[in-house]
């Protein structure tokens, strides 16, 4: 039956059968009209990309203070960066590494020296040809100690960079078997001469050329005629990103057809949006998560029994149900989930256990209340989450005081400074990078002041390990150490929720919003 349906739906897509006839025949085969319609939609997608039109997005996260300099990218310029920028390597929608400007990637046996062979005859928007020197200059700019690049953390392991003909040779201080994944970082847009002349001019080799740049208002691009991969990306004639920071306005703009896709649909309204005809809601699981941070070097959190008590007093399922409205998954107190390669999926899930929490709390010898600081900006619903947590702690006999801090200045004054507070992480490309960013004892953002020799040693080992099975085991051990001894309470991984008009074809996949942080604009097309 499914074969026949498939055949019929392809007939409709190819114009040999009318939609009405198809629905009639599908019903005769015992299929509901809804399912038949979705089959049709899929067939239309399978018919392949359509060229032309203007893809418009209504996007949250824009501000008039933003710049096109990739070193300072945050969400919205980052999304636009996926339209005009080109990278050495990128993640495909299904999570594999894809060579972009790098044609071949190779390494020495000890994974200390990496070679990226640069594709020939790729053109920048200004007509210049992409060379290995441009790539080296880009990486140098981001790894310069004087740079203000947010990718500096990634680049710190690089000892030297050089261009050798078409090859870019990267020599590392410590071996790293997963270096290419780090090069997918959205700040590392390859620019002519590394962007040293004018980093904010918006010139790279991506599918669209920047035509409009009004930060905080709108960004626009037109198809770059000499894009090197025109059959895979950049189907629309133009892309337009309209900054809409108000959640309700985003939805109304999509409903009234002023835009084709929006990001950050609020979980509490998703069910209403789903009822709107002609658009669909896409929830994407990614590595983003919300955390309650205890500093392991400050009393009373320097006691692992107390930390354990607080971890066990967290009702994770309640958090996912009430704070994320089901759009997310429970966390297990380590920052990795199934969206990462080599995820250790066999670690026992920690659940809400007031009795055990009570036991550990008593053992810790602590008495009196514990102060948790939070702010609305620390993650969506943070203040509500803190209050729910206060309730579940009470069930375990732990008194929690919740203090609401101002949103303004929270990341400067509270996060990474105060002993117990709420925050969020958007995650990283690979496990070692996430751990190196926030759990390694020497990392500047080691927000929990976690210091464990065994853990640090395992991280170095895992990076140098070429055998994936062995690396997976090392990652597993690290996860267990963080889960049982760390200072992070990680109740939930949040999903990214986009809403897409049915005029958009080719949407799907990726680890972040709008197909991995904005590829939707270049990988999707407008159906007629």
């Amino acid at each position, binding site marked *: 039956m499914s074969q026949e349906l498939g055949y019929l739906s392809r007939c409709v897509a190819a114009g040999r059968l009318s939609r009405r006839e198809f629905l009639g025949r599908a019903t005769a085969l015992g299929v509901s009209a809804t399912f038949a319609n979705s089959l049709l939609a899929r067939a239309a997608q399978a018919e392949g990309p359509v060229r032309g039109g203007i893809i418009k997005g*209504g996007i949250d996260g824009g*501000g*008039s*203070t*933003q*710049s096109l300099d990739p070193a*300072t990218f*945050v969400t919205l310029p980052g999304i636009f960066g996926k339209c005009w920028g080109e990278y050495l390597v990128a993640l495909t929608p299904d999570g594999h590494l894809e060579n972009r400007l790098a044609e071949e990637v190779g390494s020495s046996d000890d994974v200390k020296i990496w070679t990226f062979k640069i594709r020939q005859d790729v053109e920048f928007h200004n007509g210049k040809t992409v060379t290995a020197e441009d790539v080296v200059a880009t990486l140098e700019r981001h790894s310069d*100690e*004087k*740079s*203000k*690049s*947010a990718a*500096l*953390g990634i680049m710190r392991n690089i000892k030297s960079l050089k261009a050798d003909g078409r090859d870019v040779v990267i020599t590392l201080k410590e071996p790293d078997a997963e270096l290419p994944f780090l090069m997918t970082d959205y700040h590392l847009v390859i620019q002519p001469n590394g962007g040293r002349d004018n980093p*904010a001019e918006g010139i790279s080799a991506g599918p669209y050329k920047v035509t*409009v740049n*009004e*930060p*905080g*208002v*709108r960004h626009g691009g037109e198809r770059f005629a000499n894009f090197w991969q025109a059959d895979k990306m950049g189907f629309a004639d133009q892309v337009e990103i*309209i*900054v*809409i*920071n*108000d959640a*309700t*306005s985003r939805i*109304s*703009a999509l*409903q*009234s*057809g*002023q*835009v084709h896709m929006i990001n950050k649909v609020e979980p509490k309204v998703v069910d209403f949006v789903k009822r709107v005809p002609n658009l669909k809601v896409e929830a994407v699981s990614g590595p983003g998560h919300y955390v309650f941070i205890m500093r392991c070097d400050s009393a009373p959190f320097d006691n692992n029994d107390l930390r354990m008590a607080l971890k066990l007093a967290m009702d994770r399922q309640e958090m996912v149900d009430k704070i994320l409205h089901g759009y997310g998954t429970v966390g297990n107190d380590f920052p990795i989930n199934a969206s990462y390669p080599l995820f250790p999926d066999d670690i026992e899930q920690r659940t809400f256990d007031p009795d055990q929490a009570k036991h550990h709390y008593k053992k810790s010898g602590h008495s009196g209340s514990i102060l948790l600081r939070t702010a609305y900006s620390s993650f969506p619903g943070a203040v509500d989450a803190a209050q729910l947590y206060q309730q579940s702690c009470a069930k375990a006999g732990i008194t929690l005081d919740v203090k609401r801090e*101002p949103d*303004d*200045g929270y*990341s*400067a*004054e509270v*996060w990474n400074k105060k002993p117990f507070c709420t*925050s969020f992480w958007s995650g990283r490309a690979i496990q070692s990078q996430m751990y190196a960013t926030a759990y390694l004892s020497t990392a*500047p*953002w080691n927000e929990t002041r976690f210091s464990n020799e065994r853990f640090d040693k395992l991280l170095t080992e895992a990076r140098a390990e070429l055998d994936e099975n062995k690396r997976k085991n090392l990652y597993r051990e690290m996860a267990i150490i963080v889960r049982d001894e760390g200072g992070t309470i990680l109740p939930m991984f949040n999903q990214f929720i986009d809403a897409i008009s049915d005029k958009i074809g080719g949407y799907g996949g990726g680890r972040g919003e709008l197909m991995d942080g904005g590829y939707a604009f270049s990988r999707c097309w407008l159906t007629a």
Partner: protein
Amino acid sequence: MLADGLIRAPMSHIVRLIVQRVSLGVLLLVAVSVLIFAGTQILPGDVAQAILGQSATPESLANLREQLGLNDPAFIRYFRWLGGVVTGDLGTAMSSGQDIATSIKGRLWNTLFLAFWAAVVAVPLAIILGLIAVRYRNGWVDKLISGLALASTSFPEFFIGYVLVYFFAVKYQIFPGISTVYDGMPFGERMQAIMLPAAALTLVVLAHMMRMTRAAILNVMQSAYVETAELKGLSAFAVIRRHAFPNAIAPIINVVMLNLAYLIVGVVVVEVIFVYPGMGQYLVDHVTKRDVPVVQAVGLIFAAVYISLNIIADIAAIVANPRLGHPK
């Protein structure tokens, strides 16, 4: 009466008055700039941290601070800026590196454009409704006008905005719900784009002006000369137009100016809902980034708008009412 007053107030007196008011205004502006600067210093967090966000490394923070000159003492930064403003240079934004004067110009123009069209509708409408309310005072027309105007003002701006968007943008799709405007946009499209925000603003400021007009005229209606006018047989509207309105003009001008100022400096919520690229959103963006030069520039412009509109209101009130021109 109005004409008589103008003749009696000597021109030199009015010129002196204007000079006096304007110089007071300038002094006030300087004081405001000091206050704004002090305020931005007290705010927690710093520019570098705010710009780079959570993903900032200590090195990149230090580098950015150095580059932005944040290590100089506050008063040096203040006078450096003040010197620039006097010579017409507002400096560059710390966060985006763009020239402030250039980027503010477009935003200010957008704000003035929206405020202008909202005012063109709202001011005459409010005054006419006020006059009608006085004419039929305490009747059902008066109550209806007052009731509707008060209701529209009592609803929060975002509620009015969303209701307008729901009906006119989503349901009937007459006007766009997103009012993004840009340079080189045809006038007709631009007008269509600002239709809903202008309507929302009109509804928000209507009642204040209308009620004030009504109250001011009703106040005058108690006077003996109005009674005289009525007794000599003038129609109700003629009494209001020729005798009551000119004498009630001072408080009306005051409230109109206050609302004009609001239309320019107080419309952040409407700008956000309709995604209108005006000054309000621009200011908020830069406050959260601790971008002191921009906050100062915008704050100064807002203060200048308020102060100059108030000066205009004062002068107009004095010119309209000769008694105020001769303080004892």
